[in-house]
């Protein structure tokens, strides 16, 4: 249904009857249309997740507030987390990867177009299943409800004893379905990058976006499986009477934690690496310089990918591991800061000496650099296990990962929206509205998430529906909630800008940014076959070579 609604918004200019258009979009296997479907689907769920966040924040605006009941509050934070990770952030990332990877490597489509469509619809129905729990969650037990076990659903809270009804089953099935969908998309992206590149595009000449999405796909393939296995076991526990996580019968609660975080930590990088990819494309173009240290960027990405598979238990410092175990995970977690730092320095060096044009996409990427710096540094604080014994499970952690996911990932995704909107729609967005969106959202973001670190340091745990006065938390919570309103308004401006520009924006032309990668060489929006004839490339910036035949890149690479 989301797709149906989406279609109306996107395809207006075509004259075909609505039913035909709908049919075309529902049955499409074109990577560009699937990409757009992913993105619109994700925006819908971003709105749902946003509404849930607003409800959470209104409840916490002052101590002993009674805006919602504890039960509703717990459902809201569970649904907010699950929605934002699995049904907003991942589809956004997949949508852009789907749309951009074939265009940037000079391919006509992905390696498996039908698998692509299949994966999208699996993910889409996964999201619908999750939200159907609002109606069907409680089954025969009474009125409907949604899952309330938290997004990492620690055992044994998910057992039948503590979670009767069907809400947790909806959560399991939704994640299983969308997980299989993600796997399909990841296989598709990886195969596309390796097998579908245009002539001349060796691995070392791929745009960074392709490299980074390839790494992301690899991470999905490796990290989704433990989650799938864990969900299967949980399903067996809940439906067939198995005892994997049933502590009364010898099962283990810690087993779930390990499985979840073996998935959960690489998942952060599944979202962050594509965000790095956007920054790595946008920053060079608006600085008018090539990316600084391309081979190092690739190496750092692969290093992050590998190390991220070995850091999961830093989510479990308070679980009671041995001191040796804790020290190992301190080591691996701190090690990941090195390649991440290298990336920040390389982006900085890309800006250095350039002629930086502050259009909206670049603004978002510059803000990303500042914010990701802070997110990385608070990450180092949390990696120091004893510090984490204080901060884990507190609002400091909530602030930290929102700094990563909103300040880092969502900011570059907004940048990517503005940067590739002309390519996808054929029209320019409204620059003034774009800047309004940027400043409002940045102000709101900092009001909310800067100040959210403080109650964490002052001992406020996460996931509490209310708190006592006199703990020094009141004023901070008030400020945090005010910031959320800024973000909500900014997001409305953003959505309005997209709609308005799609309908009435200036025609963009094929290359509005004077870009360097292959997607700017074809029409906007690109034809179904992407390129009239397959390009052949000789460097990482084929369009630079074309525009500067006197000084092409391949002389230097």
């Amino acid at each position, binding site marked *: 249904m989301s797709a149906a609604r989406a279609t109306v918004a996107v395809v207006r200019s075509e004259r075909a009857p609505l039913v035909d258009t709908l049919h075309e979009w529902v049955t499409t296997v074109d990577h560009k249309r699937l990409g757009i479907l992913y993105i619109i689907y994700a925006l819908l769920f971003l709105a749902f997740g946003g509404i849930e966040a607003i409800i959470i924040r209104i409840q916490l605006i002052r101590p002993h507030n009674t805006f919602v009941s504890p039960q509703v509050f717990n459902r809201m934070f569970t649904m907010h987390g699950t929605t934002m990770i699995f049904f907003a952030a991942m589809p956004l990332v997949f949508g852009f990867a789907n749309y951009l990877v074939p265009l940037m490597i000079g391919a006509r489509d992905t390696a498996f177009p039908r698998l692509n469509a299949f994966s999208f619809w699996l993910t889409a129905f996964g999201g619908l299943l999750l939200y159907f729990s609002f109606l069907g969650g409680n089954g025969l037990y009474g009125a409907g409800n949604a899952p309330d076990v938290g997004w990492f659903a620690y055992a044994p809270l998910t057992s039948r004893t503590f979670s009767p009804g069907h809400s947790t089953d909806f959560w399991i099935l939704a994640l299983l379905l969308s997980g299989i969908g993600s796997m399909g998309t990841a296989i598709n992206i990886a195969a596309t990058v390796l097998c579908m590149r245009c002539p001349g595009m060796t691995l070392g000449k791929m745009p960074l976006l392709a490299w980074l999405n390839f790494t992301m796909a690899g991470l999905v393939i490796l990290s989704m*499986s433990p989650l799938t296995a864990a969900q299967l076991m949980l399903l067996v526990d809940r439906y067939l*009477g198995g005892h994997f996580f049933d502590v009364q019968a010898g099962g283990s609660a810690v087993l779930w934690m390990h499985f979840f975080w073996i998935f959960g930590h690489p998942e952060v990088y599944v979202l962050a690496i594509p965000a790095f990819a956007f920054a790595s494309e946008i920053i060079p173009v608006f600085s008018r310089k090539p990316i600084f240290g391309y081979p190092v960027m690739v190496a750092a990405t692969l290093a992050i990918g590998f190390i991220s598979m070995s850091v999961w238990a830093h989510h479990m410092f308070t679980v009671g591991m041995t001191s040796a175990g804790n020290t190992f995970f301190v080591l691996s977690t701190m090690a990941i800061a090195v390649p991440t730092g290298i990336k920040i320095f390389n982006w900085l060096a890309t800006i250095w000496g350039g002629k930086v044009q502050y259009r909206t996409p670049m603004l978002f990427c510059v803000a990303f650099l500042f914010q990701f710096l802070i997110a990385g540094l608070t990450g180092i604080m949390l990696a120091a296990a004893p510090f984490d014994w204080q901060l884990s499970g507190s609002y400091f952690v909530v602030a930290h990962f929102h700094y990563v996911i909103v300040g880092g990932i969502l900011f570059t995704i907004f940048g990517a929206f503005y940067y590739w909107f002309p390519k996808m729609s054929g029209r320019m967005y409204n620059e003034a509205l774009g800047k309004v969106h940027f400043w409002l959202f940045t102000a709101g973001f900092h009001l909310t998430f800067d100040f959210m670190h403080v109650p964490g340091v002052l001992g406020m745990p996460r996931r509490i529906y209310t708190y006592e006065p006199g703990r020094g938390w009141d004023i901070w919570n008030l400020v945090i909630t005010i910031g959320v309103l800024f973000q909500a308004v900014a997001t409305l401006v953003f959505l309005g800008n997209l709609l308005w520009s799609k309908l009435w924006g200036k025609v963009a032309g094929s290359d509005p940014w004077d870009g360097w990668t292959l997607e700017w060489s074809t029409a906007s929006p690109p034809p179904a076959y992407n390129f009239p004839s397959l390009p052949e490339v000789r460097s990482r910036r084929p369009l630079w070579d074309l525009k500067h035949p006197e000084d092409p890149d391949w002389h230097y690479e």
Partner: protein
Amino acid sequence: MSSQANAAVTSLWEGGRSPYAVNSKKFGMWLFVVSDALTFSALLMAYTYLRVSTPNWPTPFHFSPSIVFSSIMTFVLLSSSLTMVMGVHTMNHGNRKATVGWILATMAGGLAFVVLHLREWLNLINNEHITIFGNPMDVPLFGGTFFTLTGLHMTHVICGVIYLGIIAAGVGRGKFKAEDVEVSGLYWHFVDLVWMFIFPLVYLMSARI
């Protein structure tokens, strides 16, 4: 699509030949196998962890019928891998008829495996009273791990039989290429390989001698 492309003006780049001739289907199947192998290893790891942390893990498999049955199942599944190899081989030589025969033989092996396995399950459930939620040995975890592991594997075998059926039908009607048969063979060998882990870890290690 490509016909439209050919009609368009030649670009400044001119087309060339791709230096990378990796078969994307085969690569995709390999990626799937990697990811599925990790799902199984996660389950096997859970099984190992729970088994090690349970002091009185039961060993309920009598030599007859359980071990005998599972050995025959292993033999049948291994043989079906051999027939699959023959199928891929004949397809590479363009002999479609023989290929269909070999694939059907592989499917028969798979089906025999499933039937024997179900027979073995029923034996455990009816005669040994081992179910997923409990058993007379009072280690409720045993049934959960056993039936989840073997059940997921059996699901893979059933999916494989259906997959091979589609391939066989296509090959018979002259539809698929040699590489499609090879890719399906890849999946089948993987399913076989998974059993080579489950058989010793689940069956032989729990045999009552």
